[in-house]
C-alpha cells in the first residue's frame, strides 16, 4: 500500500464516523423522501417542477454543500486540532502529495454520502419521470459539486476552525443571495457551476424557470463545469501544499 493510499484510507475512516454517516445519510436522502411524498398526488408537470426544485434548490444548492463543507474542512483541520499533524507531516513525503491525497480523501468521503443521496433522488425521480437520465446527470453534477466545494474547504479547514461557519455564510449569503441576485457573479459561484453541469446533462424535462434561476448567466454544460472544478482542485493542492510547506505545523 502506498503512502498516498494509506492517507486516503485513514482520512476517509476518520472523517466518516458512525454518527456523521447516519446524520448526513438521513440529510442526503431527505429530498428524495420529500419528492416521493409530493409525487404520489402530483401531475406529470408538477412532478417535473417538484423534481427540479428538489434536485437543484434543495439537494445541489444546500445539502451537497453542507455535507461536503463539514467533511472536507475536517480532513486537515481535524489533524491539526487533534495534534496528529506532526505524525502525518514529519514523513518523507512531498507536501503536495499529502495535499493531493487529502483532497481526494475529502472528495471520496463526501461523495460517499452525497452520491448516495443523488442516487436515491435520481432513482425516484427517474421512476416518477420515466427517464433514468436524471439519475446519471444528478450523480455527475453531485460529483462536480462535491469536488468543487472540497477544493475550497479543505485548505480553509486547515487555516481556521471557523471554516464550517464560513461555509454556511458562503452558501446562504453569497451563493443563494448575492450571486443569485447579480447574474454577472455566476462564474464565481460553485452552485451555479454545479447547476450548469446538471442542466447540461439532464434530460429536457427539468422546469426551465428553476433551471434559469439556478444557473444565472452560465450556459448549461458539464464540460466547462468539470474543467473549472479540475482547475480549482489543482489550485487547491498547490495552495495547501504551500501552506504545509511554509506555515507552522501546530
Amino acid at each position, binding site marked *: 500500500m502506498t503512502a498516498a493510499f494509506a492517507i486516503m484510507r485513514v482520512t476517509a475512516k476518520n472523517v466518516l464516523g458512525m454518527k456523521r454517516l447516519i446524520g448526513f445519510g438521513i440529510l442526503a436522502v431527505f429530498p428524495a423522501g420529500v419528492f416521493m411524498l409530493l409525487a404520489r398526488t402530483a401531475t406529470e408537470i408538477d412532478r417535473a417542477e417538484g423534481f427540479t426544485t428538489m434536485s437543484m434548490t434543495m439537494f445541489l444548492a444546500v445539502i451537497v454543500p453542507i455535507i461536503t463543507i463539514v467533511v472536507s474542512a475536517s480532513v486537515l483541520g481535524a489533524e491539526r486540532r487533534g495534534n496528529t499533524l506532526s*505524525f502525518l507531516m*514529519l*514523513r518523507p513525503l512531498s507536501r503536495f502529495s499529502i495535499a493531493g491525497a487529502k483532497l481526494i480523501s475529502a472528495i471520496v468521503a463526501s461523495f460517499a454520502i452525497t452520491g448516495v443521496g443523488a442516487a436515491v433522488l435520481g432513482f425516484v425521480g427517474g421512476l416518477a419521470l420515466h427517464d433514468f437520465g436524471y439519475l446519471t446527470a444528478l450523480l455527475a453534477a453531485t460529483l462536480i459539486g462535491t469536488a468543487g466545494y472540497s477544493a475550497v474547504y479543505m485548505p480553509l479547514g486547515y487555516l481556521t476552525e471557523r471554516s464550517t461557519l464560513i461555509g454556511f455564510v458562503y452558501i446562504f449569503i453569497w451563493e443563494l443571495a448575492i450571486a443569485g441576485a447579480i447574474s454577472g457573479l455566476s462564474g464565481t459561484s460553485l452552485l451555479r457551476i454545479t447547476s450548469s453541469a446538471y442542466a447540461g446533462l439532464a434530460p429536457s424535462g427539468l422546469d426551465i424557470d428553476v433551471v434559469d434561476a439556478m444557473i444565472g448567466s452560465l450556459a448549461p454544460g458539464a464540460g466547462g463545469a468539470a474543467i473549472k472544478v479540475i482547475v480549482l482542485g489543482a489550485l487547491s493542492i498547490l495552495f495547501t501544499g504551500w501552506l504545509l510547506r511554509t*506555515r507552522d*505545523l501546530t
Partner: protein
Amino acid sequence: MTPPPPRVDRTPDLGAIPAPAANPAYAANPTIVADSVSKFFGQKVAVSSVSVSFGPGITGLLGPNGAGKTTLLRMLSGMLVPSEGSVTVLGRHPRRDPAVYRDVGLVPEESSIYPSMTGREYVEYAATLSGFTKPRLAASRALHEVALESDADRSLGGYSKGMRQRAKVAAALVHEPTVLLLDEPLNGTDPVQRAHLIAAFRRLADSGHTVIVSSHVLQEVERMASRVIAMVDGRLAAAGDIHAIRRAMSDIPYRVTVAAQPARPLARELMGEESVDGVTIDGTTLSIETNDLPALGTAVPLLAHQLGVRVTGFSPDDESLESVFRYLVVGR
C-alpha cells in the same frame, strides 16, 4: 542569612559560525545544527537567538515550563519555522527537504494518536508513511522494542497514558531513524515502562544515533543523558557535561553535608578554613558551603583526626542535575 546569588546566565557567546570543538553548546560531530534560531509568537519571544548543535548520544534538553524547550524541539523537527536563524538536520533543511524525515523520528509532547486505530495499525501507518513496503514486519519490531506487542491489537482510545506514550515511541522508531527527538517521552509511564524506554533510548545512543530528550524530570535525564542543554526564558542557559557546568559556576559555593560526632568542634575549626564560606549545624550534621571542594575534602578528615571527631558521611549536595538546574533557573 546570605542573599541569594544573582541568576546565572551562561549563554555562550557563539557568534554566527559554529565552532564545534571548543564551545560546549556544539557537539563534536553534529547531526543537528541550530544557528541563531529565534521564534516569536506575536509579541512573545519563545526562543531567542539560540545556537546549539547535537550529535550522536543522548542530549537532555532541560528547562522549566515556558523555557522554550518544546519550541526549540519543534523547530529542530521542522514543525515550526524559525522566525530568525536556521536549522539543519543531517545537513538538510527539514522544511525544504522532507526526504530528511527518513532519518528523523519525533515523539511529540501532545497526544498525536488516532483513537480509533489499534496500536498496530498506528505503527503500521507510520511505517507506510515512511516508505516501508512491508510495514507489518517493521511495526512488530518497533512494538516489541517498547514492550507493547501484547496490547498491539487493542484500540488506542482504550490505552492508558503510558501505553499511548509507548505507541508514540514505537511509531517514531519504526523507520529506525538516525535522529530521534523526544518531547517528555516518559510522561505517564510507570517505573518499569520508564526503565524499559530509557534502556531502549540508551541502546540507540550507544549505536550512534542522535537522541534529544526534552524533559522536566531531572532524575531521568540524569540517568540517560551524557550531555545537557539547559534553557531559561527562551535562551540557552548552559550546555555541556553536567559536572563541568557545575564546576563552571565558580561564583556559587558548593554545599556539602558532613555527618560528624561530635559536630560542634569540627564546625568551629572549619570556620577558620579559607575554603569554607559558612557552616550550619543540625544535631550531628554539618551543612558546609565551600568555594573549593577539593580543599574541603582534604581539610575535613585532617581536622577530624586532630580533634578526635568521628566522620561518618561526606556528600556534596549539589553536583546533581537538579541542583545545577535549580541554580540556573532560580539562582539558588
